[in-house]
């Protein structure tokens, strides 16, 4: 398989990576950069567990080819906390009890972060729409929605 060299900024670090043409961004993050916080739940863009920020927008990283990311700026769940300080969405989801198994949590946090970046004071309906593509089987979304409301207040 032919390799392509890309330069990509992941969580503020510039990385140079050789990627096969058919490698997804999700595979690259997990297998090449060992950033395993981003999860694989369906490999089909349907569950949202692999959501990352690409140039500020939430994307399903299983549906993006790594080769397309040359020059892109990526934020994963590992990049949300700064200098050991959790982001306000991370703090809020701990406070409300919105984490159970934790497998959807990274994608959920990214979608919530993207929402609050573009709309700092969302309505409950806007919150629910923002995470419509992030499936959670444990929580019934109750405390995740509460957490995003809480983070918007913070």
């Amino acid at each position, binding site marked *: 398989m032919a390799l392509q060299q890309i330069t990509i900024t992941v969580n503020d670090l510039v990385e140079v990576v050789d990627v096969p043409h058919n490698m997804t961004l999700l595979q690259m993050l*997990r297998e090449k950069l*060992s*950033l*395993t*916080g*981003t*999860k*694989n*739940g*369906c*490999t*089909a863009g*349907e*569950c949202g*567990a692999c959501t990352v920020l690409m140039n500020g927008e939430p994307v399903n990283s299983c549906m993006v080819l790594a080769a397309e990311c040359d020059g892109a700026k990526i934020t*994963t*769940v*590992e990049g*949300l*906390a700064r200098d050991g300080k*959790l982001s306000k969405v*991370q703090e809020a*989801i*701990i406070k409300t*009890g919105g*984490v*159970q*198994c*934790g*497998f*959807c*949590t*990274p994608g959920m*946090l990214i979608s919530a972060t993207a929402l609050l970046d573009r709309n700092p004071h969302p309505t*409950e*309906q806007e*919150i*629910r*729409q923002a*995470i*419509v*593509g*992030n*499936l*959670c*089987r*444990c*929580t*019934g*979304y*109750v*405390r*995740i*929605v509460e957490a995003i409301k809480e983070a918007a207040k913070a």
Partner: protein
Amino acid sequence: MANVKSKEQSSSPIGANLPRNDVYEKVTGIATFTDDIQFGGKLLYARVKRSPYPHALIKKVDVSKARAFPGVKAVIVGTDFPNKIGLYLKDKNILAIDRVRFIGEPVAAVAAVSNEIAMKALDLIDVEYEQLEPIFDPEYGASEKAPLIHPKLGEYSWPNFIFPKPGTNIANHFKIQKGDVEAAWPKCAHIVEKTFRIPHIQHVPIETHVAVALQDEKGKITLWASSQSPFAQRALIAESLGISPTDIRVIAPFVGGGFGSKAGVTMEAIPVALATKCKGYPVKLLLTREEEFYTNFVRQGLVIHVKVGCDKDGKLLALKNLMYWDGGGSTEYGVNVTRAGGYSSSGPYDIPNVRTDSICVYTNHPIGGAYRGFGMSELHTGLDQAMDELAEAVGIDKPTFLKMNGVKEGETLDTGMKMHANGLTQCIDNVAKAIHWDEPKTPSSPNKLRGRGIAIAWKAPAMPPNAGSSAWVELAEDGHVTVGVGGQEIGQGTFTVMAQMAAAALGVPYEHVRIAGPVDTQYSPYEWQTVASRLTWSMGNAIRAAALDARKQILDIVAEAWHEKPEDLDIVNGVVVSYKSENETSLKNIAIYGMPKENDQGWIGGPIIGRGTFMPTYVTGLDPETGQGTRSVVHYTVGCEGLDIEIDKDTGKITVLNAAASFDVGHAINPTLVKAQIEGGFVQGLSSAMFEEIKLKQGVMTNPSFVDYRIATAPDVDFPLETPYVEVPQDDGPWGARGIGEHPMVPTIAALGNAIYDATKIRLPGPPYSAEKIYLALLDKGIVE
């Protein structure tokens, strides 16, 4: 002298909303799940050749071309591993041997240096089949006309509480005969008779099944798996491979959702089998989402015929249940689902005469296994909707009917067991109040129909009578505590609850307790399985015992050193104090090195390690013909759910206006976690009620993706949900606690079905209550044109 009172803990860890002890890892992405572990360049990728037919004989399997394919390290077929495997009824092989029994059944497997090569190798495997008549209907399957799916059923092994019928497709027939149902019918003023069909559904953990196995040169096997059952997997896989259980070490990192699907043993045996053919190479099998939908456990389907009668005042007199469970091609775990559905078949109702036949039938559908509250959602879907109509026939208010007939302390259950103290009546009152049962039901617009529904439920831990737990509690140099557990953190919060219990029993701050994870069968104490909502109760009892054991050791040492009596000492906030002398010393002063005797005359004590075990010893056998015995189960958790809904006449779409779920949890060790379980379980139940069905056509699942198999999303569940719980202590539970993990999804389908009936007078034969189904029923009934 210290002021002892200043050292008192400001509040007990029991009943406190303490933060989860796994949450920092989970919000920062550093929590390790099985697929996150790095295995280096020798990692092999496994893929599985699966049956394309629901029922066929395997005439020939030719793997020669696959074996020769560059990059392939191992190829295995069924005959390589001839021993059976399974939790209860051992009717399964790791790979099919001479016959396939459902579409997707593993027939061969490949381990290769890449996923792509493994998939190419699968295409090179030639399998010749001879198709057989398939069975897709459990009632037909149970009849004498049906062809046999397991002709050698009589040669399999099973425990003495399972009753297969060799020479038929019946894998288990559980019976209840309490009183005399036939004699009771003439005394009934009202009788309701209904049939319901509950479809197969899938657990849908967001993390699909994944397992990695490695056999070293000496033959020792390590299995890393997303698992609810590391110890059961060790035992069952070892038995099937013909090796000793301790020759397999199972390491179980965090689990990305299980809901029963990761209990027992399913796909985990395949990478182990492959690893035995390529020693020194780790072999990973990660199920695709499509494979997750139908090749592993599903929740089996059920056809339930229910007949229930009461006197003129509404007091229940008789219940007859005939249940045909669509068990699938193997029922190794499913036989106990049907047993649970049988012994709990009266639901939480006091009924003097009960006749139940709970029949587990082999079919050529996917394998039915454990699913959150197994057997109970299915049973209650039929039972509680029949009860709803009976209350209507009598003409009494539903909550009144439920409270009159709901089971109370001292009443004799369908199995002959006496019911313990419980808060069912309070749960019913809580729910009726929360959904404003007595208020007018005014629709929000003329094209809406409004209705309210309520249903009660119960469930006991469904397990062998003697499922055991064990724990250890160890103190480190800093006086902090490490707790060894064998039960698994699958999201429910058990590691947090166990730390709270250890902290409370020992007398140390919650923050000073950590759980020794991940669970590793080489170091962790034994635990049967993380199933049945049993950990808070069973593992909790073991941990409490271990912490009390450590506490006793500490107090004995300090008492000797201080020349005091242990009874006068206490441990508060990690400090040993004497109420008599007002002496005090931190645990860190004694935890490892003990305490010096006076005048340098030696030492007292040493490292502290407490141990505790728990196993219920009081569950008795039941008569095979009548299901009667002294104590069928350890205990029941009871509760109630209700919904206030509107249905759009133009679309059939349901909008939930508000909902409530109330359960008697005995004692909420961590109220936030209790409420989180109830919320999540309710929504999972509602999702199964409104959206979910494995659509099976000639054995083929036609909707194996999230696009076609919808689960509830955040906008779907935009309504207020109240979860007031009740605390009537359980006599054999730690601090009175009993389990709550599964129960919240048990009555949800029935409660919604009752709300739909209240709004429309339409009783649909089974879920999911999709907008399409409801709209067509509205048309049919002439409610819309």
